[in-house]
C-alpha cells in the first residue's frame, strides 16, 4: 500500500480502454488536485463516462495506471471504493423503492445501524427538499428530484471524492442551478468533485481546472483562464460602412486588443478573436474597440459579440466540431449578423 503525499485526488497515466475496435479511452493523463472541482468537458462518446467508470473501479483499464488518493484502482479497488462515491445515469438508485428506503438501504450497506441509517437518510431528504416525496417510489420522481436523490445517495457517507457524471444533462435551468448549488456545498466541505459535462458554461461555473476530452484523448487541460486563452474569450464581429476603411480598422484593433483580427469574405466585415489573457472582459474589450474606432473616424454599421460555444472550443482545439447540436445554454453565439 502506498502512502499518499502528492496532494492529488486523482492521477492517471496513459489510461486506455478499448471496446472491440473502438478505443473509447486512448491514453488519458489526468492530475486532479484534492479539494477542488475538476471539470471534464467533452461531447457524447468522447470517453468521459468510460474514464469515470475506470476511476470508480467499475471498469478495468486495458492499459495505463490510475490512482485515487494514491490507491491503485485495480490492485487497491476496495480502498478506492471506501473513499469515492458515484452519481451518473448508470449508477442509480432503485426505482421500485421509495426515497427513504433507498437511502436506508445504502446507509445499511455502508455500515450504519438501522436507526442511524434512517436518521441520516431523513436529514438528507430534508436538506434536498425531498421530505414530501420520501415515501414515494423513485419511479414517480421528476427529473430534478431524481437527480437530487441520486446525489443524496452518493453522500450518505461524506466521500473524499465524488464523481458527478453529467449531473445536469436533461434538466431544466432551475433544477440545473440547484444541482450547481449542491456541488458548491459539497466541495466547500472539502470533498473533491470530478464533474463531467457537455456544457462549457457548467464547467466554467463550477470547475477550477478543466480537461477537454475528445475521442478518448485529453486535447486541452488547464485552469479556466488558461483554457479560455487557448480558445479565445469570444469574438467581436464588425461591419463597416465603408470597405476602404477596413485596413485602418484592422490596424486599430490589432494595436488595441490582444486579438487575432481577420478580414471576412464580405469586404466590409471583419472578426477579432479576443484573447482571454487580457485583464478586461470580452465586453470591455469590445467597448474599448468601438470607442477607438469612433475616434479614428471609422463608422461601424453593425457589431456583435460572440461567446465561445462548446462547438467553437472544439473547433478551435480539434479542427472538427462536436458532431452534435449545441444547446442554447452552452454559450450564446450571436455572430449571425455577419454576412458571408
Amino acid at each position, binding site marked *: 500500500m502506498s502512502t499518499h503525499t502528492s496532494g492529488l485526488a486523482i492521477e492517471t497515466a496513459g489510461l486506455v480502454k478499448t471496446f472491440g475496435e473502438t478505443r473509447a479511452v486512448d491514453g488519458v493523463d489526468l492530475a486532479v488536485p484534492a479539494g477542488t472541482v475538476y471539470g471534464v468537458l467533452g461531447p457524447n462518446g468522447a470517453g468521459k463516462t468510460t474514464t469515470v*467508470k475506470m476511476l470508480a*473501479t*467499475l471498469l*478495468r483499464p486495458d492499459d495505463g495506471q490510475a490512482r485515487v488518493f494514491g490507491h491503485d484502482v485495480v490492485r487497491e479497488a476496495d480502498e478506492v*471504493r*471506501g473513499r*469515492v*462515491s*458515484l452519481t*451518473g*445515469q*448508470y*449508477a*442509480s*438508485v*432503485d*426505482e*421500485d*423503492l*421509495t426515497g427513504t*428506503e433507498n437511502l436506508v*438501504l*445504502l446507509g*445499511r*450497506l*455502508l*455500515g*450504519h*445501524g438501522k436507526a442511524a441509517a434512517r436518521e*441520516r437518510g431523513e*436529514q*438528507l431528504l*430534508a*436538506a*434536498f*427538499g*425531498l*421530505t414530501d416525496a420520501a*415515501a*414515494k*417510489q423513485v419511479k*414517480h420522481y*421528476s*427529473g*430534478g*428530484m431524481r437527480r*437530487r436523490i441520486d446525489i443524496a445517495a452518493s453522500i450518505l*457517507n*461524506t466521500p473524499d471524492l465524488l464523481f458527478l457524471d453529467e449531473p445536469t444533462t436533461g434538466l*431544466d435551468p432551475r*433544477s440545473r442551478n*440547484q444541482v450547481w*448549488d*449542491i456541488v458548491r*456545498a*459539497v466541495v*466547500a*466541505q*472539502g*470533498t473533491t468533485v470530478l464533474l463531467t459535462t457537455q456544457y462549457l458554461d457548467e464547467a466554467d461555473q463550477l470547475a477550477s481546472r478543466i480537461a477537454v476530452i475528445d475521442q478518448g484523448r485529453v486535447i486541452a487541460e488547464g485552469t479556466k483562464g488558461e483554457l479560455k486563452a487557448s480558445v479565445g474569450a469570444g469574438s467581436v464581429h464588425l461591419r463597416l460602412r465603408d470597405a476602404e476603411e477596413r485596413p485602418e480598422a484592422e490596424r486599430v484593433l490589432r494595436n488595441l486588443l490582444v486579438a487575432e483580427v481577420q478580414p471576412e469574405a464580405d469586404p466590409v466585415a471583419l472578426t477579432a478573436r479576443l484573447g482571454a489573457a487580457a485583464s478586461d472582459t470580452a465586453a470591455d474589450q469590445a467597448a474599448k474597440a468601438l470607442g477607438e474606432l469612433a475616434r479614428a473616424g471609422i463608422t461601424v454599421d453593425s457589431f456583435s459579440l460572440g461567446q465561445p460555444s462548446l462547438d467553437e472550443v472544439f473547433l478551435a482545439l480539434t479542427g472538427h466540431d462536436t458532431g452534435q447540436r449545441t444547446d442554447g445554454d452552452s454559450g450564446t453565439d450571436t455572430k449571425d449578423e455577419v454576412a458571408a
Partner: protein
Amino acid sequence: MSTATSSETKDLSPVSTESLAALLVTRERPPRPSALSTSLTFGWRAILKIKHVPEQLFDVTAFPIMNLLMFTYLFGGALAGSPSDYIQFVLPGILVMSVVMITMYTGVSVNIDIEKGVFDRIRSLPIWRPSAMVGYLLGDALRYTIASVVMLSVGLLLGYRPDGGFVGVVAGIALLLLFSFAFSWIWTMFGLMLRTEKSVMSVSMMVIFPLTFLSNVFVDPRTMPGWLQAFVNNSPITHLASAVRGLMAGGWPGVEIAWTLGWAGLFLLVFGPVTMRLYNRK
C-alpha cells in the same frame, strides 16, 4: 403497496445548502459491515420489492397451482389409474419442477438491475463482493418457500397425504431450497453475461425445460428408451425429485440426498466463481 402516482415538477422545495453543509461536515465512517449483514440487507431489498410490486408473486402462486392441477388431472388417470393416486407420486416432483423453474427469474432480476443502473451503484460500494448476489438469492428463497407452501396446501386439498408427516415435508422443502440456492448461480451468471432481459429469459427456458421435463418427475424412467434413461437417471433434477419424494414419504433416501447435495455443491463451485468473475469484470 405502491404509493400513489404523481410526478410534480412545478414546485420542488429548495435545496437547503446550509443543512447540507452541516451534514457533510461529518467525515466519520461507520465500521465496514460484515458479509452477513450486507447480504441480509440485499435480501431486505428483495422483500421491499415484493412489497411494492406484489404482482411479481404471480409466478410463485398461480403458476405452480396451474402446474399441479394441469399435470395431476391430465396424466393422473392414464398413468396411475386416478388423479388422487397419481398425486401421491407426482406432487413432490411437480414441487421440484415448479420451484426449479422459477429460479430462472433471478437472472432476469440481475439483468434488470444492470440495465437500470442500480448495479453500478452497488458495485461501487466497499462491501463483500458477492453479497448483492447472495441477497438476490435470499429474497428468492422467500419466494420459493411461498411457492412450496402454496403447492402443498393445494395438494393437501386434492388428496395428497405425505407419510413423512410435517417433519418429512419440511425436510423435503429444505433440501429443495438448498438445491435451488446453489442452482441459481447459473442464472446470476446468465443475468450478467447476456445483454437483454429477453435473451436471459429465452436462454433460461432452453436450459430449464429439458432439464426439468427429462427427469423422473412425471413417470418412472424405466419406460424410457435406454439412451434417455442414461440422461434422466443421472440428471440432478431426478436425484432431487427422488430425494424430496422419499423424504416426504417418510423415508431417508440417503444416496439420493447425497447426489443432490453433490450436484448443489458442484453448481455453487462452478457458477459461483464464474458469476463473481463476471460481476467484477463487468
